[in-house]
């Protein structure tokens, strides 16, 4: 077998392994084996991320499926997707040891993984849509896994918004592919740039994937869905799945091929708003995972901003994309760790070496998100700033970003405040596996700080004092404020207000819900009532029929009188002859 065949085999395997495992978990016969192997399903993806594969082209699958191209985006995405899914899987094995719906979890976990990996590998529009949809709909299973009312509500919001997103994307794809029916990603940016509907497509793409990204005003599902899912689920949801939205932007927007300043500015504005809005609302939350979800919203704001800049400044697009990737990797791992940590801490407890270890780890990750010096967060922010410089963005931007960093610090502090005190003193037995996998992930995260897959050239600047300072002061300020607020909680009179998770959703629902009820009237009504209206109608018809037929009957009776027949006869004859004579 030749090398490239091996390479393509690797690609196929990356996709098929989780796919086949899904099947195995579904079938009772092979379920146990499947579930045993499930945690490792993401390993091939990780491998492919490290190595290189070869493009696969299946003409007869879907509308001609193409998979994998060895470009930076794909590799990076594969890498962090693989890592996070792998360790979340390993973590889940311990986390869900005595879970009621274990098989269901693994089924959806693997299916979502398949969709996720597929979306990264896909090289043509149709296949991308296929895997994207697969991921979206299977992730629903992770959201509602707990089978609680809250989970159901969150799931409903999630699925509705996801559907809206899908629909917009579908519209965008129709406009995009046109009569070519399907399109390879090699041509997409060019085609979009040249398309007569360019702006419409871009808007649809931005909004459509925006739902997944959790961009401002499309973010309502995040704070609902993340908390209800089991920890590993929320980890991948917040770590990789929302990144696929960003991937969609990178794949479909004409970055570097066309300049759309207006749209770009809108995106930048939206990004910044998200960055602050997420923090603002997040600070009002009580539930740790919800806080993290809002932090994700604000973090995604930075990526939105970067993409916006790339839209505005084609020449700087490559750099910005690089920055986006760095940021994606950093956020994926850090946020994944944090979410897993929320699941881990109750198991280990906060006393004892395990607890301390976890607390230290969590703090480290929090600092990463806050962008403290010498953390992956610092690297991410650094590359972002330099990319902005390349894009000649406005002078205010760096300051705003630093302010946002202050916000990040605050919200991380809020997170710790919500997590640590609630955690039990002593942990339960059997947290070992979870701790191990978590620790390993933390290790990988740290390793990736020194050998980042992208943005290596920024690495040296990390130690430059100028950057150290610019990275440090927001964290210090934030930490200070947090400390003050924390210390003052005894005597200060005001409290942080509490907003319901999903903030703007609720006023919105008040408008939409009645409409939906109206649309579905009768679905819950019993047959009889419906039948009776129909019966009334039929009765009316029958009465009318009867009456008219009776009329005819009477007429017939009158006609049957002998004399009338005679008259009819004469009349007939008369008319007949009359017609002839005249």
């Amino acid at each position, binding site marked *: 077998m030749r090398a490239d065949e091996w390479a393509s085999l690797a690609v196929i395997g990356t996709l098929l392994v989780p796919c086949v495992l899904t099947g195995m978990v579904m079938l009772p016969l092979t379920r146990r084996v499947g579930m045993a192997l499930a945690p490792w399903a993401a390993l091939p993806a990780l491998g492919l991320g490290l190595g290189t594969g070869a493009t696969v082209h299946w003409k007869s699958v879907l509308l001609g499926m193409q998979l994998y191209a060895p470009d930076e985006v794909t590799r990076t995405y594969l890498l962090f997707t693989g890592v996070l899914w792998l360790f979340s899987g390993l973590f889940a094995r311990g986390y869900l040891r005595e879970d009621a719906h274990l098989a269901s979890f693994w089924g959806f976990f693997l299916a979502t993984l398949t969709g996720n990996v597929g979306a990264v590998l896909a090289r043509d529009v149709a296949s991308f849509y296929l895997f994207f949809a697969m991921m979206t709909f299977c992730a629903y299973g992770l959201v509602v896994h707990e089978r609680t009312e809250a989970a159901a509500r969150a799931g409903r919001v999630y699925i509705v918004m996801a559907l809206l997103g899908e629909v917009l994307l579908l519209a965008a794809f129709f406009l995009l592919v046109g009569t070519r029916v399907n399109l390879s990603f090699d041509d997409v940016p060019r085609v979009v740039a040249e398309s007569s509907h360019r702006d419409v497509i871009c808007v649809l793409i931005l909004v459509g994937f925006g739902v997944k990204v959790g961009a401002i005003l499309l973010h309502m599902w995040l704070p609902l869905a993340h908390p209800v899912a089991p920890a590993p689920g929320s980890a991948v949801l917040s770590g990789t799945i929302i990144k696929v939205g960003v991937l969609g932007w990178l794949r479909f927007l004409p970055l570097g091929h066309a300049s759309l300043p207006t749209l770009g500015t809108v995106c930048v504005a939206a990004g910044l708003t998200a960055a602050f809005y997420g923090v603002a609302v997040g600070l009002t939350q009580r539930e740790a995972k919800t806080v993290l979800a809002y932090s994700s919203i604000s973090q995604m704001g930075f990526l939105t901003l970067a993409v916006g800049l790339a839209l505005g400044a084609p020449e700087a697009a490559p750099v910005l994309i690089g920055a986006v990737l760095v940021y994606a990797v950093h956020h994926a791992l850090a946020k994944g760790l944090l979410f897993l940590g929320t699941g881990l801490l109750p198991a280990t407890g906060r006393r004892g070496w395990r607890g301390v270890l976890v607390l230290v780890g969590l703090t480290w990750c929090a600092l990463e998100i806050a962008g403290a010096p010498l953390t992956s967060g610092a690297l991410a922010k650094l590359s972002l700033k330099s990319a902005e410089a390349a894009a000649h963005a406005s002078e205010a931007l760096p300051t705003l970003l630093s302010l946002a960093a202050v916000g990040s610090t605050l919200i991380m502090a809020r997170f710790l405040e919500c997590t640590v005190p609630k955690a039990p003193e002593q942990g339960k037995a059997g947290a070992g596996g979870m701790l191990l996998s978590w620790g390993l992930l933390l290790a990988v995260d740290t390793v990736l700080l020194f050998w980042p897959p992208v943005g290596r050239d920024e690495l040296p600047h990390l130690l430059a004092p100028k950057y150290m300072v610019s990275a440090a002061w927001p964290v210090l300020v934030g930490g200070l404020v947090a400390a003050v607020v924390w210390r003052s909680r005894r005597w200060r009179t005001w409290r942080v207000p509490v907003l319901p998770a999903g903030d703007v959703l609720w006023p919105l629902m008040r408008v939409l819900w009645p409409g939906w009820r109206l649309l579905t009237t009768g679905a819950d009504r019993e047959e009889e009532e419906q039948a009776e209206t129909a019966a009334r109608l039929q009765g009316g018809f029958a009465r009318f029929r009867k009456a*008219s*037929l*009776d009329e*005819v*009957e009477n007429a*017939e009776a009158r*006609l*049957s009188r002998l004399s009338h*027949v005679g008259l*009819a*006869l004469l009349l*007939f*004859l008369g*008319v*007949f*002859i009359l*017609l*002839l*004579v005249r």
Partner: protein
Amino acid sequence: MTSVAALMAWPVILPLLGAVLALLVGRPGVRLVAGVASVATLMASSRLAWEVAHQGVLRQSIGGWGAPLGIEWRADGLAALMLLTIALVGPLISVHALDHLGDREDREFLPLWLFVWCALNALVLSDDAFNLYVTLELTTLAAVALIAVRRDLPGLDAGLRYLLFALPGSLCYLLGIALLYGAHATLDVGTLAQRVQPGPVTWVAAGLVTVGLCLKTPLFPLHVWLPPTYTGAPTPVTALLSALISKGSFYVLLRLWLEVFAPVLDARVGQLLGVLGAVAVLWGSFLALSQTQLKRVVAYSSVAQIGYLFLVFPMATSGARAGAIYLVVSHAAAKASMFVAVGNIHQAVGITALGGVQGLAYRMPFTFLAMALGGISLIGIPPSGGFIAKWLLLNESIGTRQWWWALVLLAGSLLAAAYVFRILRGSFLPLPAEVKVRSIPLRNELAPLALALIALVLGLVPWFPLELLAIGASR
């Protein structure tokens, strides 16, 4: 002997012989004689049809006296087709009659039916206006006897009613003929066709002939005698009446109208007949819908179906002629099967109301099938002769730019569907427990099925009858 004379004589002579013999032999042999006569007549009729199909129109003057003095007989495609229809439908009905009527009745029924058959064949073949009158009257008289064959009140009442409505009809016809003879000194249809001129006498004569025959057929608004007569008569007789006997007078009207009057009359009278036909269609169908007695539903459907026939007059094209005749033939088969099926139901459960059909589909599948197929033909849904007829008429109405007749045809079939399925529907209901089912001989189940199959076959191979019809369509 295979001379033309013989060819045309046998179909008339054989049933006559049979009838007389049957009367003479009485009880034991009557069925045998009738059976032999029927088979013989069928063979004679088909032989004649065969010859017509191959040699074209056949003529024969009775007793060697040619027109104008003597009586001309003429066998064209139309006549041949009618002969075949009578020879196929009639015997099947009489087969059913055997077990439907009592012993004494069928001793009298069979000869009478043979008389009717003889008269009808003569009517179909004769090409002489007065001869047509005579055969018409013979048919009527034999029919009246048939109606009253049970000698019960309903039968007698129906018979008298029929007689007293038929008489004025045929007398009107006779007066018309008399006037024509007075004007043109001939009774031979062919000669008349050449001699008639537009003019008062022709008009009055045409009027009398038309009205008289419309009363006999009958056409709305002269149809009122039909339902009581049909319901009063024994079912097999009703079948004969509506399938064959009523067609006799229409046949005469069609002949005279298309061959003699049409050229010399204003198109508006054609429209008049058409309008009356249309009204008949709707009127009959509505009344059929409102009936509660099975037999009356079918009877009123006859009123409607006869209405279709009269749509030929406003169009007066060869296509319309073909359509009308096709309807005559397929209606004969379909309606006969319907009536016979009704007879079976009555015999089996003794219920004359619509409810009688309940559970029919399970109890008497063949009868049910016959009813279904017959009904389909009445509605005019393919595959059935009724559809072909409707199709031809529709085409003509569009072709002659008289689309309103198309509307009537279509509306008529919808109404027909309404009353036919009103019957069929019930037959799927479970059989009511309290009803006692008398088993009836298989023969009686198969007779209506055979009739219905004729209607079906007419819908599957229409090209053969149509080709036959084309022979001698115009003189």
